[in-house]
């Protein structure tokens, strides 16, 4: 096989397939994981009937949704109704093209020098899925869910942007690979100097993925199903997968930006340990996935603990608390970088 064909087509395609498979399966299994975690928080056992210890539950759910009748409301805007689930899942998957799972080229699809902008831009598209899905259903509850989502996105995108810029100031680069490399060179992960930014980022991340305590767009007890009230079968499953894929996106970004991506934990304290042959054998993506899993567990913990915010309180939190905090934090960090001398 000619060399360019190999480098530019076969290998990337293989990687794309692997990433997609892992991601979609991962998102499906997150539902199982979430049900188990919630179950143990809530003194019950959770799914344990399908397969050994319930491990096939996610597969069974997927099968059920595949064969379920796919209803389209009579007075809906048909094309948009169909488009909305696609709009939510594609951006969520697209983001993974630039996320580095490991230090070498094998562990990532590509390294773009404006990867961070790409991630922010693409993941914002996903919100159209929710707004359009809510609008096209021609259902009052769905419409309210969609509108809530729009307002929520606008309020939380801004502080999240500032939190991310804090990291850019510290790293001096928009490339995700470079951001991790800087953390390795400095020997300190950005969550230490950027603890406030991490907090703002993650709160906004939870809000952007519409998860408890910010799950207003789909608040079951108020809006029945919110924007996806009218969706059924595979279309609904797309919304569901999209939500979980977005959780993985937010967790992955938090890992890359603040927790040193694929770097092993405690780089300074345990440095001799990591140099030892046994642990050096552990592939770097393991650390990446472990950190992502920790964040996702946090998501589920939230869901098991918090009540839901009200619409106006959510907006208040976004504009009156998170935005000023993230702005002030950005200035402090920028000043610190100026004084200490950042990367070049």
């Amino acid at each position, binding site marked *: 096989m000619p060399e360019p064909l190999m480098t530019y087509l076969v290998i990337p395609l293989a990687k794309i397939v692997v990433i997609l498979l892992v991601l979609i399966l991962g998102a499906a299994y997150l539902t199982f994981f979430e049900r188990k975690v919630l179950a143990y928080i809530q003194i019950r056992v959770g799914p344990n009937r399908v397969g050994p210890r319930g491990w096939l539950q996610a597969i069974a759910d997927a099968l059920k949704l595949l064969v379920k009748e796919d209803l389209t409301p009579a007075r809906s805007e048909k094309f948009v109704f169909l488009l909305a689930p696609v709009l939510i899942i594609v951006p969520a998957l697209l983001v993974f093209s630039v996320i580095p799972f490991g230090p070498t080229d094998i562990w990532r699809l590509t390294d773009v020098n404006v990867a961070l902008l790409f991630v922010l831009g693409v993941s914002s598209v996903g919100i159209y899925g929710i707004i359009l899905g809510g609008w096209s259903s021609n259902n009052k509850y769905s419409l309210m869910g969609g509108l809530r989502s729009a307002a929520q996105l606008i309020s939380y995108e801004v502080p999240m942007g500032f939190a991310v810029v804090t990291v850019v100031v510290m790293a001096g680069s928009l490339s995700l690979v470079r951001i991790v490399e800087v953390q390795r060179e400095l020997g300190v992960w950005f969550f230490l100097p950027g603890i406030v930014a991490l907090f703002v980022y993650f709160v906004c991340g939870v809000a952007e993925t519409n998860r408890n305590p910010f799950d207003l767009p789909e608040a079951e*007890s108020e809006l029945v199903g919110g924007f996806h009230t009218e969706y059924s079968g595979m279309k609904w499953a797309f919304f569901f997968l999209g939500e979980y894929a977005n959780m993985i996106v937010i967790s992955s970004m938090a890992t890359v930006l603040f927790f040193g991506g694929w770097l092993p934990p405690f780089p300074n304290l345990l440095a001799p340990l990591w140099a030892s042959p046994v642990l050096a054998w552990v592939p770097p993506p393991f650390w990446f996935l472990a950190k992502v899993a920790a964040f996702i567990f946090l998501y589920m913990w939230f869901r098991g*603990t918090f*009540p*839901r915010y009200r619409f106006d309180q959510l907006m208040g939190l976004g504009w009156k608390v998170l935005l000023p905090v993230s702005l002030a934090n950005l200035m402090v960090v920028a000043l610190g970088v100026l004084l200490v001398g950042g990367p070049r």
Partner: protein
Amino acid sequence: METAALKTFADAEEMEVSFGPQHPSTHGVLRLMVKVDGERILDAKPIIGYLHRGTEKLFERETYNGCIPHTDRMDYTAAVTNNQGLVGAVEKLMGITIPPRAAYLRMILAELQRLASHLVWLATHALDIGAQTPYFYCFEERDKILDLFEEYCGARLTTNCMRVGGMPYDLTDGWTDRCRAFINQFPAKVEDWERLLTKNRIWRERTVGVGVISAADAVEWGLTGPPLRGSGVRWDIRKVFPYDRYNEVEFDVPIGTNGDTYDRYLVRMEEMRQSVRIIRQCLDRLPDGPVMAKVPKVIKPPKGEVYFSVEGPKGELGYYLVSDGGEKPYRLHVRPACFINLQALPDMVRGQLVADLVAVIGTLDIVLGEIDR
């Protein structure tokens, strides 16, 4: 055809949403026609009757003891207190004094029922506000209470556990020990839930100042039970018109100050502690003796009418009984707590947000079985 429908969305500033009867948080089959402007509620109109079974008419063709199972099905989360009100009314008309052991048994069961009912309230109320986990904690405890009911009378939900003149059964061996074991571990659980909610910032933001009703308005509307006490009116049938042996036990009637959802929450949490206190005293003093007074085989109250009410978990549950001297009630009217409490709902939600609506429905603690009967 579709453009016409969508145009109404675009033009509309006011939107009318049919909230229920199939809705996850209307606690049964309540239907509300809600007028909203965006998220703000302009008006809410409750529409009831989806669970109407004609209970009051059914009473008229049953013997007095035969009416008791029908009361189980009114407020199905508090069957024991429903039974208690009915048999109390008949006994009052007939002038029967029940044996002390029966009175104490009634109090124990009624207070256990109050706990169970408040647990359902807390579980669903928290779930409506978005906190899932308390639901399961509450239902675990409620199950223990239902186990005690089952051991006493064989039924868990529709207990049918009282008769005119006393109680149908005596306690099984060891029941008091199991009941004591339950109430000994229960207060710690209440503390746990309070730790999860009371100081929780989100919980407070969602409940403080939501669904406010002033003491004067609450009295005007005829509210009873926790919705009245949450507004600061110290009114509890167990204190003001003591029935059974409530005058022999010590307990406090907690009241709120602001009349908002948070105060009603605090009131009910404290009521749970007080109920435990009552049960403990009753168990300590439980006298020996018969559980049934001497009553004729066929219950035939004299001609006349009587009103008797008990403090149910949801509020004052009254029975207005008219007897023509026969073995069936001529007319038996129920004064349901939930029905009258629900009337205040439109006033409480007007001007608030949609999310508050479910909080207010939750805090009124309505059961449609009792509203519709």
